[in-house]
């Protein structure tokens, strides 16, 4: 393997890579080796126009752009020489000549590469007295993005993204010189399944999302690593948290799962965490047939009582469970143990499926369907039949995927159960059939692992605490197991292992 030296340190790199790619491969780019850049992006074609990534390569008189210079065995690169620093200062100054001083009103502030690099590599003062270029501001570029032409530094990442990733190509640079502007074609707005990624890759506040606009300053947000739960791709995300609330998802790079991207629907699924339709209290159906709010423990006791009565009259095999493909592997593991302790084989899971694409979007609209399958949970349909037929008298239902079109008649089947205990995160028609309702936690509120479509188990950590009492399915089942004196449930529940 070829070896190159960067700032006196030798590295072994792969053939056929550029200097920037090699540094990125090594994990040292902007993480030990400073080569600031705008137009280059690890997942887009090479552009070469921002000129910020210029470095000194021994033996070549002119500075070379690191993004387009192929490595060669024995190459010696300098990223911190006076010439390089001077060149960076020059690029930064020129970029700021026309850039509007919008920081006080710009969402990008705090995560803006123009701010960061101007501070790090730029001059202390501006020398320009000339009026700045005037262009369009607050352009409604499409359903998800607001665009400010004046802030744009013409790195063209957004143009390349739309052409190369979703392939929809809605953006282009019009005109030339310092009159260049990014535009869309009349009546063809920026509208594709991945449109919001342009806001991530835009180094400045030219492209920002409508969803996040003016909501909160990014320096108040803590970025908690997590996983999107919208489908079985398991795209890695950062949950942007402040005040015990998730304000947004942004993609977290994982070259094996989602590169640097997130689909718009998944990105916006953070809204589900704090949604108005969260089940925010436990409930028990009373003698009049109404659901009364109840403390969690009370509801659990009521559920235990009803299930105990079924076990005593019909045996543990008459108790079934529809597990959730949204629950963690640890939750599902406990469900398996619960069923085993009951001596019941009545189990399955329902799954909402939908469209998929060539990129990230998968058919299974849950984060852990693969985990459920790996624990030998099969499809819900046979279980629903047995409920309908009366073989299953008590059913614990987790999640609401059973309401999907793939399960016609599910509600009538479920109505046949004498006891229906619902563990779920969001409200649904299932409440009308439930005898006990128990609020569950979403992935952002618990520890655990989720297995994606490719069999990769990924960890989630709690980013927020629900404002009401809610327990993960695993914790609820564990407590239920204790109340039912099931074998193996006597130890205290441990969140991390679910044991």
């Amino acid at each position, binding site marked *: 393997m070829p070896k190159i030296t960067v700032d006196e340190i030798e590295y072994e790199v792969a053939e056929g890579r550029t200097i920037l790619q090699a540094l990125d491969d090594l994990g040292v780019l902007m993480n030990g080796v400073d080569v600031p850049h705008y137009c280059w992006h690890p997942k887009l074609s090479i552009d070469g126009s921002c000129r910020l990534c210029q470095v000194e390569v021994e033996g070549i008189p002119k500075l070379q752009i690191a993004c387009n210079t192929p490595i060669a065995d024995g190459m010696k690169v300098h990223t911190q020489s006076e010439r390089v620093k001077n060149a960076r200062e020059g690029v930064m100054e020129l970029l700021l000549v026309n850039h509007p001083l919008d920081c006080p009103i710009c969402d990008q502030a705090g995560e803006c590469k123009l701010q960061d690099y101007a501070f790090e590599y730029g001059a202390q003062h501006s020398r320009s007295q000339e009026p700045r270029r005037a262009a369009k501001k607050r352009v409604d570029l499409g359903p998800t993005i607001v665009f400010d032409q004046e802030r744009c530094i013409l790195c063209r990442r957004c143009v390349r993204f739309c052409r190369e990733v979703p392939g929809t*190509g*809605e*953006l*282009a*640079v*019009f*005109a*030339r010189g310092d009159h260049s502007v990014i*535009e*869309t*074609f*009349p*009546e*063809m707005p920026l509208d594709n399944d991945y449109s919001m990624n342009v806001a991530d890759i835009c180094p400045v506040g030219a492209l920002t999302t409508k969803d996040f606009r003016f909501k909160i300053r990014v320096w108040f947000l803590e970025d908690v690593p997590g996983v999107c739960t919208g489908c079985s791709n398991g795209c890695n995300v950062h949950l942007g948290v402040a005040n015990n609330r998730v304000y947004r998802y942004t993609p977290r790079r994982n070259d094996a799962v989602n590169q640097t991207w997130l689909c718009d629907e998944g990105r916006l699924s953070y809204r589900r965490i704090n949604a108005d339709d969260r089940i925010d209290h436990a409930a028990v159906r009373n003698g009049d047939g109404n659901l009364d709010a109840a403390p969690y423990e009370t509801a659990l006791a009521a559920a235990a009582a009803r299930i105990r009565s079924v076990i005593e009259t019909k045996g543990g095999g008459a108790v079934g469970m529809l597990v959730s493909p949204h629950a963690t592997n640890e939750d599902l593991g406990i469900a398996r143990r619960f069923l085993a302790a009951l001596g019941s084989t009545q189990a399955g899971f329902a799954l909402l499926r939908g469209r998929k694409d060539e990129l990230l979007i998968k058919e299974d609209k849950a984060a852990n369907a693969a985990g459920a399958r790996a624990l030998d949970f099969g499809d819900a349909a046979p279980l629903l039949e047995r409920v309908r037929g009366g073989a299953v008298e008590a059913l614990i239902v987790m999640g609401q995927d059973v309401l999907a079109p793939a399960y016609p008649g599910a509600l009538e089947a479920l109505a046949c159960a004498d006891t229906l205990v619902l563990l779920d995160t969001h409200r649904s028609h299932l409440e009308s059939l439930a005898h006990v309702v128990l609020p569950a936690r979403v992935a952002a509120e618990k520890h655990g692992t989720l297995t994606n479509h490719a069999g990769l188990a990924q960890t989630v950590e709690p980013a927020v605490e629900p404002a009401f009492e809610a327990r993960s399915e695993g914790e609820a089942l564990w407590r239920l197991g204790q109340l039912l004196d099931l074998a193996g449930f006597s130890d205290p529940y441990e969140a991390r292992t679910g044991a």
Partner: protein
Amino acid sequence: MISDETRARIDTEIAKYPKKRGALLPALHHVQQQTGWIAPETARELAAIFELHPIEVMEVVTFYNMFYDRPQGRHHVYVCTNLPCSLRGSRNLLRELEQHLGIEAGETTEDGRVTLGHEECLGACAWAPVLRVGETYHENLDADAAKRIVDGLK
């Protein structure tokens, strides 16, 4: 709407290039001869012919001086204001034409007859000042000659 005649010209151009898109600039010239400018509808038609996104046609239109994304006068009168011509008074000449026509450079007369503008070096520097009316060069001008030329345009 691109006429059949123009379409036939475009097809002839396409045959000359190893890749279809090579004929896009020639096609834009032919279309402009027919329509005078490239409207969004026209860009869509061209995009369909060349299997491009309409915006790829439009970005090309906006890049080049000779393609227009808005309606133009019947005649383009462009006065070179680059260095050799400026040295010989072309900017004064342009100002006199502005006054004569009652419009500023970059604008079109109300009757749609003339669009007046700046031009970059036309490659006739020894015979400055120079202007072009469409494809025709007029050289060694003075203000009176320029006005006569402009007045003669229908």
